[in-house]
């Protein structure tokens, strides 16, 4: 199991479009993906779940990935956060 801290860098936060990107990326992997904010944890392959994190710019989330391809999955998802989902930072 891999656990990493990720931060929302883009100005608009984890709104509908980045949430879709995240889910599409997570869904490419076998591994289970979870995101946690405080005590609220959601499935990283559920777009509605990701949206309800309501994670604004600057918010920090815990990314939990578990499964055969967890290393690749964690890297790919972390890269999305690092890139601010391709949006304005």
């Amino acid at each position, binding site marked *: 199991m891999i656990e990493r801290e990720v931060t929302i860098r883009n100005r608009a*936060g984890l709104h*509908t*479009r980045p949430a879709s990107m995240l889910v599409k990326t997570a869904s490419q992997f076998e591994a289970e993906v979870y995101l946690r904010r405080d005590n609220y944890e*959601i499935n990283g392959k559920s*777009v*509605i779940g990701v*949206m309800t994190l*309501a994670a*604004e710019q600057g918010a920090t989330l815990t990314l939990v990935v578990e499964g055969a391809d967890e290393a690749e999955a964690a890297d790919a998802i972390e890269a999305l956060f690092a890139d601010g989902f391709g949006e304005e930072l």
Partner: protein
Amino acid sequence: MEEPPPESTSADELVIEGTGAAPGVVLGTAYRYEAAAPTARRDAIAPDAVDAELERLANAVQRAEQGLEADRVWAPDALVPDADAIFEAQALMLGDEDVLEAIRQRIRDANEPAGAAVQAVLSAHRERLEDSEDAHLRTGADDLLAFERRLLRALRRGAAAAHIDGHSVVVAQDLTASDLLRLRRHNLLGGVTARGGPTSHTAIVAQALGVPLLVGAGEALAAVSAGDRVVVDGDEGRLIARPDPSTEEEYRKRAADAPSPTAERERAPEGPLRTTDGHAVTLRANVGLEAELDPLRPAPPDGIGLLRTELFLRADGDPRSVDEERQVEAYRQAIEAAGEGGATIRLLDVGGDDRRSQGAAEAHEGHPVLGRRGLRVLLDRPDELLRPQLRALLRANREGPLRILLPMVTDGAEVRRVRRILDEESTRLTENGVPHDANVPLGAMVEVPAMALQAPAFTELVDFFSIGTNDLTQYVLAVDRADEQVAARHDALHPAVLGLILRVVEAGRMSGCPVEVCGEIAGDVQAVPVLLGLGVDTLSVAPPSLPAVRRIVRATGYDAAKDLARDVLQADDAQAVRRRARAWVDTHLSSSGTASSTTNTPDR
């Protein structure tokens, strides 16, 4: 060929005997159909109805997926920023197993109807977003709401069965004639019902459509599941589910030997109407007089998009004198002429410029077009005109697909009131044992600017929008068409009117709510490419305009039309739009003249 199929050679093959109600043999895939639930809201479903409700949900999700694909293709993404991202998200939402499972759980554990379960689960998620302090994140709540409406609409439209394809055989407890017509519109191959007899209206319609139909198959039909391979033998009165390869082969030969009854009845020789780049466009007819029905019958367009009932029903000069029975008959005629596309019937729109039909007091109003007209009149005295007309429509809806259209809607409260009255009348008809079909789409005319501006909110209330550009233009431009001193200023190609049309199209596309344009502009050759470019895919025009509009649609490319629409929205008056639209039509379609020829390669 007459020997009965072999006794079940595998454990799986199932032969069910019934009564052939329409001849012919087809092989297809079973599609289980449940008639739409009564309009009355139920708090809980019976425990033994849970499986059916889960299936209804699964069907709705499939339907919503297909509707979403269509909307996505037509989305004016060049005009609406982020449209594609929102559609992408909606597609992911429809595949969100966590949320779907939460909905299913409520149906299973709490016996909640699917609609209530959808609302409960999604509103909980929405509230989390609405609580966010970040304005941009709060917009996610709107995206969830649009998704929720799309799913609820798909549930409501149970009967429309958009995911039926050319391989489907409907399996149902019972089917009304209008169910069958609706399903046939989706290329249904054949049908089987547990109940019903060979002389029913449904049987007659099946014969007329050339759809093999088996009735009275009884309770054994419960053993047929959605997705099963099935053979319907309407000649011998037999259904074979999950046939053995040998049985299937035998029937395949029989089906191939017999001329396909449906193939002979394909529509207009030219085939479905499409743009040069293959986008389907629905073209309907506006009808105001009974005499206009006859010319439609030989080659009906995709139904009647606007039937104005004021003159249509006028027996001796006043629509108020027309009784319910006469109305049922008149609507039956319209349905018959409309064919598979069905008929959109607008409730009596009295008042406004129809001054002669007004009482003396009303004639004294300074601005009748801003006065008591349309739905306002109907709701003021619902017993007089509204209730009898709704009853007649509910009754006629048994005969084929009807849609009810409300004139001059301004407020949501008006639509809610009509829905309530419609429910009441349906209940009363049921109590009195009068046959009718309560499953009827309810749409709103978009004429009052308030309605266009609030279109996203109205997507929750109505099943479709029909934009009446004549009145919309008059209200947006503050031009009374009846006043000849200003009438020349009345042009629906004004960019402000087009902007409102785009707003309605966008609201509809985002939530899967169909939008059509039925005003004169839909029959205006210069306007058609602009409307297509704005994302409109259904036009309803006066019958004489049908051929010209068909030609212009066939010669227009959707992508090029989008560029045109984006361009004209920037204009500051109707003349500028007309100039650009005319130039566009000339460049794109000029090779052989816009009104004279169909060319597949308009770009020179």
